[in-house]
């Protein structure tokens, strides 16, 4: 690794200031992507800005209105060990508990996962399905962006040079809704997804129809995708196998996968369909518990 400075801002203001000192910066949250990329020469920088001592970036709490505020640098283990998150947002636990192994989960953050902008990022479909908003800050002020608009291509995100992802905000989930995330990897753990998918279903008061849905797929296109056509195939329909199959087809039709050592094009398209169906079935089971 080339020579590099390490800086540890203690506040957002300090963090923004370090970005205007003329040095080329990279951010360090859990380091599970960036430390390896720096050492392997895939990224270079003059300074590493450690975000873990900025209080806003280490937050994990429910606001009075039920919104979950996740500091961008909070690690996966903090999230899946949180009893209230376990009870209210099981789909988030699905994702946080399978990013890497235990050693990775004690460091890896959701902020790092989305900022790294891998098409296969395992938190992305879940955050999209849950309707998460990203709070982005800079010296100029703050802005919010729906997470599905954040990804711009492999390794590319919507942040400007002077911006930091401060928090991920998950709004209170609709009544009678349930969400689920799943992925396919060739091993049982510790691998990058060949494909992944998440879904949220909201049921009508009597549980007989799907009032609303959000479906998201990953690793089958240059960015994780919100599959609006899959949601359309679900709205107003009965929550049954045929409906889920149709939504799976719609999701697979959006897939524009690559062929690489992890999987082929046809396999990935097939997985987008199957994983969407499984996400829907399991999301439905979770939604039923709320009726």
């Amino acid at each position, binding site marked *: *690794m*080339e*020579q*590099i*400075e*390490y800086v*540890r801002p203690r506040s957002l203001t300090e963090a923004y200031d370090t970005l205007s000192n003329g040095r080329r910066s990279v951010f*360090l949250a*859990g*380091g*599970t992507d960036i*430390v*390896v990329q*720096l*050492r*392997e020469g895939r990224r270079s920088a003059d300074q*590493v800005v*450690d975000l*873990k001592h900025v209080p806003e970036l280490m937050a994990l709490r429910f606001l009075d209105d039920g919104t979950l505020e996740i500091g961008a640098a909070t*690690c996966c*283990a903090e999230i899946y060990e949180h009893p209230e998150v376990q009870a209210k947002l099981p789909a988030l636990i699905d994702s946080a508990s399978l990013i*890497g*192994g*235990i*050693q*990775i989960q*004690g*460091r890896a953050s959701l902020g790092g996962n989305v900022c790294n902008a891998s098409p296969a990022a395992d938190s992305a479909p879940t955050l999209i399905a849950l309707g998460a908003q990203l709070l982005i800050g800079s010296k100029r002020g703050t802005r919010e962006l729906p997470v599905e608009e954040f990804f711009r291509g492999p390794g590319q995100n919507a942040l400007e040079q002077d911006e930091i992802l401060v928090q991920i905000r998950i709004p209170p989930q609709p009544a009678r809704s349930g969400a689920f995330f799943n992925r396919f990897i060739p091993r*049982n*753990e*510790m691998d990058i997804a060949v494909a992944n998918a998440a879904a949220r279903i909201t049921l009508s008061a009597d549980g007989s129809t799907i009032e609303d849905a959000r479906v998201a797929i990953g690793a089958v296109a240059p960015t994780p995708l919100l599959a609006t056509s899959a949601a359309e195939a679900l709205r107003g329909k009965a929550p049954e196998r045929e409906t889920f199959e149709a939504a799976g087809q719609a999701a697979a039709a959006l897939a524009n996968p690559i062929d690489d050592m992890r999987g082929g094009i046809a396999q990935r398209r097939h997985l987008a369909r199957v994983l969407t169906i499984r996400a829907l079935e399991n999301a439905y089971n979770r939604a039923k518990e709320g009726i």
Partner: protein
Amino acid sequence: MRRTQVQIRLNGEDIDVLCEPRQTLLELLRDELNLTGTKEGCSNGNCGACNVMFNGRLVNSCCVLAPEVDGGEVTTIEGVAQGDHLHPLQQTFLSEAALQCGICTPGFIVAAKALLDREPDADADRIRHWLAGNLCRCTGYDKIVKAVLAAEAQSREAATR
């Protein structure tokens, strides 16, 4: 070459050490502090040979920058035994022959200890899941899982004596 000072509580002792900001915690331990019990396997987060405890969590020291641990607490494999008295896991890795070449062993022991400190009765499935981030090319894992179970049994026995 600019070096920065890092203060750590390392295996229960407060120390000051100089490092380069680009060094990893693994390099700090092995190259600056001569604590070579922590091993380098892949240097990219996949093998667990470099596992240490950092502020109460199990981490891959190859994915931590040395200056990050300034002000923190680190425990390595060298901090697992109490003087000459081996930790139950160290005893059962020997008695169950849970190692061959041994390069993965410090990482497995540090990782398994992190599990047993939280969940002293973890079953075989839980042990396998917890240790999924540790790779071993020699043993085929069964003996490692047996050694962890044996260490649990030994600790339970010691507690009832």
